[in-house]
């Protein structure tokens, strides 16, 4: 019991070691060029996916690409402010369910794997995006 508590405490302390002053997540993704590569790879994943592509039937892909690049730049502490569309407004009426949302997360992971993005950087990207789910699904 005692050893379990000590291990949990150590894990918590490790978690507290946020890199302050280190490279931002934006820099770890290789900045603007890296984020553009990631979004392009992600769009390719979506285009090839029968389950997801229908959500993009009426989408302007250039607009989606620019908006997502801008959004990811802002989310990863890059030199951007998100000026794109409101998340709730975009997704209202799409009725994206939990399964399809998770499938899109899997496509994003595929895209990150394709670009050989480090596992820990991938997780940090997912951590930044996960809180947006409430503004995206089942609306």
């Amino acid at each position: 019991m005692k050893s379990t508590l000590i291990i949990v405490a150590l894990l918590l302390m490790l978690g507290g070691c946020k890199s302050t002053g280190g490279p931002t997540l934006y820099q770890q993704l290789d900045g603007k060029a890296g984020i553009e590569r990631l979004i392009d790879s992600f769009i390719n994943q979506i285009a090839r996916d029968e389950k997801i592509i229908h959500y993009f039937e009426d989408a302007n892909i250039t607009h989606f690409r620019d908006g997502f690049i801008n959004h990811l730049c802002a989310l990863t502490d890059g030199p951007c402010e998100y000026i794109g569309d409101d998340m709730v407004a975009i997704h209202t009426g799409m009725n994206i369910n939990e399964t399809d949302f998770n499938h899109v997360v899997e496509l994003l992971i595929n895209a990150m794997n394709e670009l050989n993005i480090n596992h820990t950087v991938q997780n940090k990207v997912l951590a930044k995006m996960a809180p947006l789910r409430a503004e995206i699904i089942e609306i």
Partner: protein
Amino acid sequence: MSMLKFFLGFIACLLPFSNFAGQGKLLATPGVSQVEGSAGGGLVPWAQLAGYATDDEFAINGFCSRADVSDYTLDVCGAQINLFNRVEFSYAEQHFDVPALNTKIEQSITGAKIRLYGDIVYSQWPQLSLGVQHKSLRDGAVATLVGAEKTSGTDIYLAASKLHLGALAGYNWFWNMTTRYSEANQLGLLGYGGANSRQKLLFEGSTAIFLSRDIAVGIEYRQKSNNLGLGEEDWRDVFVAWMPNKYVSVTAAWLDLGSIAGADDQTGWYLSVTGYW
């Protein structure tokens, strides 16, 4: 065994519909199958419901596990059904082998778990679930002999789980805490209650780190009460779980189960395989 056959038969009937069965959760997030049949780690039931079903899917899973410690062997097989990621029903059969006494103790466990709140990945607060495990010994002779009051019992537990993305130097970190009301002696294999019966509210915990999308290593702890006065001790393990896809998971662990029925230092290996449809 007949109940397990019935349960597996029921699942077989559902298999033709398995095109609709759930694959919607993210890889590895349902956890594996614990020793009493509920979704969890190896020893501890977790707040996750078994299988990959999301809120508009169902999932069916089957598993078998073996724990091989110094003087005993425990074999468990069971199955779970997850309905809309809201309710989990489980059934498991345990075969506890005591070679020294040339005895086998058999127990069946029927479980249900309801998800009260949240999602281990996405919700701000941990996922919270309430579960029951009704356990019944086939033959209570050994339990009665060692001083147990009853040969069946019902555990009730409240579990909280959370996966923190990138929380440990960029690795995903999982934890679970469970509080269990139980009168069971050694899972119930030695019956329920006893002359020494005092503590009924027990703490259980697990924590793990995901080294990759499909491999997690972690530890578990399960508090035990010493109802029989036979020196029952808390259980713990160190585990590695491999979830290569959404159809199978394999878990291996090193167990430290302390003293069981007077035989000290029961350490050994655990292996468990779960299949998901």
